[in-house]
């Protein structure tokens, strides 16, 4: 085992470069700037699910102390982008995003209908409570399961997939067919979505915004308000978690920008926790049906995966719920179908692991069910149907160490030492169970641009307009640049979170390290080449050398053939009278990556305790094994991996955003009733990395980690609960009532 972890000792990794700011409270999140004459905006939300506003009582609010303005569809200034077909926030959906204060239509309960602006927070909050709307109500639906038949294929995605014969599982010697339900989850980052908008004149605005995409937010505001790029600055230095909720520019942010323009003063808007349930997306409630067939010796003969997810009535949201079933196993016959049902809720958005996490819950549970039916070790069944190449695209994988993941995890959890018989293991009053599952997610890479400046003091500054919602982007880039440039981490400053910087990717889809890291790597390479060129004066030891002939460490360049022949970076610059070297590099995936299927893989093993009398389930141990290519930043990667497990514990055991369908209103839109796991829910988590580079994804050989850290975990828990108790729970979360049911 040890050899897998050899290079990935989290203790040996770089401490977070922004750690000191975060532990001292000095890190400034988007609501924490203090421009002069700041005003406070509070969003008033609709209290019906569908219909029209027929009257809006704002007089009381307008007359309340300190109130500067109440803005609604009745008096909002025209927003130039609303009528041009340009979408204020196009990702990840099709159709027309909600245009805040555009008209009197209500699409969901909790929709922003007014913005109350006052001179203090307390006054704004109080005045907002005075705004009352009268509506005409229309019939609505917020229940997916009762309306499955009305679901339809999405317009923007291929709805069905077929390889070989459809529904082949039905003719298999051994088969399972089951339905799986995933409750609606809400991202609920700890930081409430917040924005400060500051206009200078009519055509220039600066926003401090919680966003995972600095440039995409800038683009949204440019499109919405018809502004030039140079006149829209988005600053997002610290982002208090996102998990997908900050992937788009939501209506409340547009409302804040409108509000600041109207009152001609800086405006701060922070959502309340209950508004986080209705205004910034969620992981949609999803129904799935899986059929799997196999020969009696466990060779899969058919997989059928059908899914129906929620979208809103005004936008089409889709995600890759059924993707994994197409290529995870070597199976000749696979058919999938993915449909969506518009419900009268706000538009969902990708939440960590997105659709793949939803899909893996069903697929990896069904595989487990089949294994027990075959009387076969669930791990053995997976290995017996291991896909050596991608059966969906008929391409080789750029790298795939899933087998190694299974092996490493099984060894760590003691899989072979368990008693495989269902219900056979006990610990006092508790039943003990073991479960395994696997996960996968595309190893994506986007375009990224960085500017790198190397000063004659030996300080390397790299800039990119990305934001970091928590993974540790600045840290991993510093670590990468440090290794690549042979400079101490303390000599490197990675700056991010400002749209004035070179264009970077949106932080999503586990692609930041791959995209941005490639640019950083290439920028360092270009700097090294420049340094070599500068040092290659006639007579110099470095003259005429190819880049491979030198190495960089401790801020010095030395001959590979004779490490005593060296020159410091600062000397190279000084000798050339250069105060600094500066270059801008844009990096994007090259041709070398074509012809391969690129995926990260993960395996989750868990040991659970189930208290049969009360139905309580506790995770006793978790082992998370990742094939995420070469690990760039060990400490940050370790935290990502355990963080994914914690997210998975929530998905598996505790998280469910519940709507009262009579009203279309959430009944648990707070942290007391929507249960994000707390410290006591989380056991020791062992994170293992295979840490073998992928030759094709990017120069570092890395693959994404953030999603696979969560994908599959819930199924491992469900499978372990079955092993412990013989109860198969097919509806998440696995709460005590379901164990007793």
């Amino acid at each position, binding site marked *: 085992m040890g050899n897998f972890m050899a290079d990935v000792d989290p203790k040996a990794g770089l401490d*977070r470069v922004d750690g000191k700011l975060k532990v001292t*409270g000095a890190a400034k999140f988007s*609501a924490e700037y203090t421009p002069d004459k700041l005003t406070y905006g509070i969003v008033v939300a609709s209290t019906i699910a569908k219909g029209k506003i027929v009257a809006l009582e704002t007089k009381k609010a307008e007359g309340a102390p300190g109130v500067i303005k109440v803005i609604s569809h009745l008096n909002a200034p025209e927003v130039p982008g609303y009528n041009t077909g340009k979408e204020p926030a196009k990702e990840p959906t099709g159709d027309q995003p909600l245009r805040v204060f555009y008209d009197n239509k209500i699409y969901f309960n909790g929709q922003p209908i007014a913005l109350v602006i006052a001179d203090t927070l307390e006054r704004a909050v109080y005045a907002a409570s005075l705004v009352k709307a009268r509506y005409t109500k229309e019939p609505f639906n917020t229940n997916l399961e009762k309306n499955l038949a009305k679901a339809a294929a999405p317009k923007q995605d291929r709805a069905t997939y077929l390889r070989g014969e459809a529904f082949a599982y039905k003719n298999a010697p051994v088969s399972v067919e089951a339905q799986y339900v995933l409750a609606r989850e809400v991202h609920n980052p700890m930081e409430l979505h917040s924005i400060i908008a500051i206009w200078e004149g009519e055509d220039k605005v600066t926003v401090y915004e919680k966003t995972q995409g600095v440039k995409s937010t800038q683009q949204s505001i440019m499109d919405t308000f018809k502004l030039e790029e140079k006149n829209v600055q988005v600053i997002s230095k610290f982002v208090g978690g996102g998990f997908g909720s900050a992937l788009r520019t939501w209506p409340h942010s547009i409302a804040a920008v409108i509000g600041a323009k109207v009152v001609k003063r800086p405006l701060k808007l922070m959502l309340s926790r209950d508004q986080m349930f209705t205004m910034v997306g969620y992981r949609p409630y999803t129904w799935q049906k899986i059929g799997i067939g196999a020969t009696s010796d466990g060779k899969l003969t058919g997989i059928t995966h059908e899914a129906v997810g929620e979208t809103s009535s005004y936008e089409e949201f889709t995600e890759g719920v059924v993707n994994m079933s197409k290529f995870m196993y070597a199976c000749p016959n696979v058919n999938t179908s993915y449909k969506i049902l518009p419900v009268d809720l706000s538009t969902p958005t990708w939440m960590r692991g997105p659709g793949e996490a939803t899909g893996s819950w069903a697929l990896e549970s069904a595989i487990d069910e089949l294994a027990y039916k075959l009387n076969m070790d669930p791990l053995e069944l997976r290995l017996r149907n291991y896909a050596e190449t991608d059966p969906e695209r008929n391409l080789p994988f750029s790298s795939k160490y899933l087998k190694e993941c299974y092996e490493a995890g099984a060894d760590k959890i003691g899989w072979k030492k368990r008693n495989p018989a269902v219900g056979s293991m006990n610990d006092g009053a508790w039943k003990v169970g073991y479960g395994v599952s696997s996960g996968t997610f595309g190893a994506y890479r986007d375009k990224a641009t960085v500017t790198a400046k190397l000063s004659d003091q030996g300080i390397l500054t790299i800039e990119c307009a990305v934001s970091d919602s928590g993974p540790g982007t600045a840290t991993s880039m510093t670590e990468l640049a440090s290794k690549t440039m042979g400079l101490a981490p303390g000599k490197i400053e990675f700056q991010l979170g400002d749209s004035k910087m070179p264009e970077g990717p949106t932080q999503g889809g586990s692609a930041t390290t791959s995209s941005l890291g490639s640019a950083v790597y290439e920028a360092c390479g270009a700097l090294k080449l420049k340094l070599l060129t500068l040092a290659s004066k006639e007579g110099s030891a470095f003259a005429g050398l190819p880049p491979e002939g030198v190495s960089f460490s401790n801020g010095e360049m030395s001959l590979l053939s004779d490490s005593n022949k060296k020159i410091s970076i600062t000397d190279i610059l000084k000798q050339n009278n250069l105060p600094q070297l500066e270059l801008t590099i844009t990096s994007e995936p090259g041709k070398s990556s074509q012809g391969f299927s690129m995926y990260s893989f993960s395996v989750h093993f868990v040991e659970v305790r189930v208290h049969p009398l009360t139905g309580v389930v506790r995770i006793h141990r978790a082992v998370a094994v990742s094939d995420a290519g070469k690990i760039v930043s060990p400490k940050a990667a370790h935290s990502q991996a355990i963080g994914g497990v914690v997210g998975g514990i929530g998905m598996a055991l505790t998280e469910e955003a519940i709507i009262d369908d009579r009203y279309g209103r959430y009944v648990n839109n707070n942290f007391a009733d929507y249960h994000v796991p*707390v410290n006591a829910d*989380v056991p020791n988590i062992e994170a293992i990395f295979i840490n073998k580079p992928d030759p094709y994804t990017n120069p570092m050989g890395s693959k994404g980690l953030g999603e696979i850290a969560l994908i599959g975990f819930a199924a491992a828990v469900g499978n372990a609960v079955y092993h412990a108790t013989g109860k198969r729970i097919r509806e998440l979360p696995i709460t005590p009532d379901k164990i007793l049911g």
Partner: protein
Amino acid sequence: MDHLIFPTNENELAYESRRDFLKQSTMLTALVLTPAAILKAGENDENIASALEKLPLTLEVNGITHKLAVEPRVTLLDLLREQLHLTGTKKGCDHGQCGACTVHVNGARINSCLTLAIMQNGQKITTIEGLARGEQLHPMQEAFIKHDGFQCGYCTPGQIMSAVACINEGHANNRDEVREFMSGNICRCGAYPNIVDAILEVKQGGKKI
């Protein structure tokens, strides 16, 4: 505690209603308002009420004494963040359900979102900004960095304030105890195991914190 009680006598309270209060001109001396402000507020009855309902408040925050005037409805959290600009203390739920706003009052950890600032009159408040000694980080801050006890950093100030109190209360004797007594601080990034490691290390280090 008892030395900072607002003016009342045995049977009578300071005032019975907004209007009565306004009539009690002698009470105005208790308010930190300039005559000009009162005059201006007088143009509008509602404004008078709201302006006059600010009460004097003395707080020691991170060793600095603040003499303030606050509306009674202002929570300690909002006072810290919006008026004193001590934004290290975070708002994560505003209802005592996440722990991001944890501060110490006379050394004890509380949720600053669920207490009115005026109720803490005369108390000593310590926020995350008051933990380090100049450039020298508090051992718990060092340990959080070393063990990567956070990712996004938003719950971190609350976690650290809670962690320091957890040890001082005597509730950090083993992993399970730390887990239970740190369960009032939600971390959505899922850094819990690292947080427990950090706390146990500080506890075992035995330094007075």
